[in-house]
């Protein structure tokens, strides 16, 4: 397995509902990231369409594979790069069942997808109105190591990142569309998820204003000790490229051995208590 990976955090704003325009922007960023030697580029949650699209989601959702993933696959192949991006995925078995999905594509094509498990439906969020929740965590073997995918609000539930880690993920990629009032939560939780799992975590947030909601950016690469290795600007589009080495996990894991010290028997209790809440 490769030890050192160069990752690009592509913090973009989206033109809502305009998939061709967003794909065009992604293409520009992919080319730029490749010039800076990136092997993996990560775009925000629902970066294909923008976040606040409401009922238009039914017109925008696509099957996977579909026309947009085909375009991204071609770009990944042409630029010999891995890509993670977000899109509304239409179930191939239905006409209006949609998932909030993170897509992982490599130079050899589509690697896999993750359907968001925790859909925020409170405050300004109305995801359960539009999306069906996912039922499985997702971890994929790639040329860049084992990558686990999570999406935004999932990060509030440590079991999602933990499961990807237990499946072997050493890089957790969290794509996000987080408005400014939640900045402090995400800045804390990105560090916590990386530390408690002794894994690298790449967090990429949306920027821009959508119907008055301001997405704060602040995308970051966090090391297994919780240290922020690279960070994008707040509130502005940015492309940050940085490298990390998986071998840096070992000293941290030996120093704070959270995985060695896991107590599986507590999980049964956790399940029981959660059902009684």
């Amino acid at each position, binding site marked *: 397995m490769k030890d050192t990976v160069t990752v690009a955090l592509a913090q973009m704003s989206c033109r809502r*509902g305009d998939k061709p325009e967003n794909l065009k922007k992604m293409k520009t960023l992919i080319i730029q990231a490749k010039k800076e030697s990136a092997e993996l580029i990560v775009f925000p949650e629902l970066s294909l369409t923008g976040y606040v699209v409401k009922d238009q989601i039914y017109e925008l959702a696509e099957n996977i594979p579909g026309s947009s993933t085909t375009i991204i696959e071609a770009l990944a192949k042409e630029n010999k790069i891995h890509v993670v991006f977000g899109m509304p995925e239409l179930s191939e078995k239905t006409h209006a069942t949609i998932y909030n999905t993170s897509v992982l594509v490599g130079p050899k094509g589509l690697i896999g997808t993750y359907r968001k498990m925790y859909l925020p439906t409170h405050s300004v969020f109305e995801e359960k109105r539009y999306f069906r929740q996912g039922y499985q965590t997702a971890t994929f073997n790639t040329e860049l190591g084992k990558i686990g995918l999570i999406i935004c609000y999932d990060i509030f539930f440590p079991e999602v990142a933990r499961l990807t880690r237990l499946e072997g993920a050493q890089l957790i990629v969290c794509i996000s569309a987080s408005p400014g009032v939640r900045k402090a939560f995400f800045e804390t939780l990105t560090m916590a998820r990386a530390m408690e799992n002794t894994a690298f975590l790449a967090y990429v947030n949306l920027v821009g204003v959508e119907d008055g909601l301001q997405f704060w950016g602040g995308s970051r690469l966090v090391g297994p000790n919780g240290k922020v290795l690279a960070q994008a600007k707040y509130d502005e589009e940015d492309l940050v490229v940085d490298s990390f080495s998986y071998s840096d996990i070992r000293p941290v894991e030996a120093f704070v051995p959270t995985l060695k010290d896991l107590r599986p028997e507590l999980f049964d209790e956790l399940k029981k208590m959660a059902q009684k809440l």
Partner: protein
Amino acid sequence: MRLTSAILELDWQEVEARTKRFISDYLEKAKAKGILVSLSGGLDSCTVAALSALAVGGAKVLGLILPEEETYSKRDIQHAKLLAEKFQFEIQQCDITPTLKALYHTIPVFDHSEKVCKGNLKARTRIIYVYYYANKFNLIVCGSSDKSEVMMGYFTKWGDVAADIHPVMDLYKTQVRKLAQQVGVPQEIIAKPSTPALWPGQLAETELGIKYDQLDLMLYGLEHFMHPEEIATQLRVKETLVENVKKRWLDMEHKRQMILTTKLEYRTVGWDFRLPRSFAKL
């Protein structure tokens, strides 16, 4: 939760940045030529005008001063001019008195003694001028309602609240004062008692029957699901006072959500016809 003035503190630099970004982003996406603010010379409109000028440049901001004879205030007009000079934006003044008099004469049932009806007529007449200018010069109307007024329903339906955007509507009055200080609104404007100026001598705090310092903490408590009894205990006021504020807070929702119809068809405006406010391809 402790209801003290400290709880209303925010990072004012951050609030300024976000408010300016909201204004400039909206203007850019709307592809309009600039921002129009109905400038009374009071705290809210001066703060919004200052923010607009800082966000998009004074050259793209027009302040419209709309006095009328019964509530004419030389001091307010001076304040509006002072602000325009400081933030380098243009102002225009239209005396709406002749229009109001024409309305008084042509409404068969008009009654001068009904001051609320008459006051609301003034607020709505101002908006006719505001939107004429906005249409003519392709400007976005930037409203200046604050959260205290909006939660208390202390505004004229389809009147002063009519605007394309409301940059400070998520801030209580005492918070708008802090933001005004942050952006450099002159102190004499910030310190003035608030008035809707719909009739002579009208003062917001007198009419609401409570000081904004106290009202804002009550509204903050209600917003955060606190029980009126707990709010009253903390603020050392009678529970009935908080109950009355809460009643008004609830009763005024009809002024905040102004489109209501009954569901008859597949997708219904105001209920489940949910489209983004968009300037893009959608």
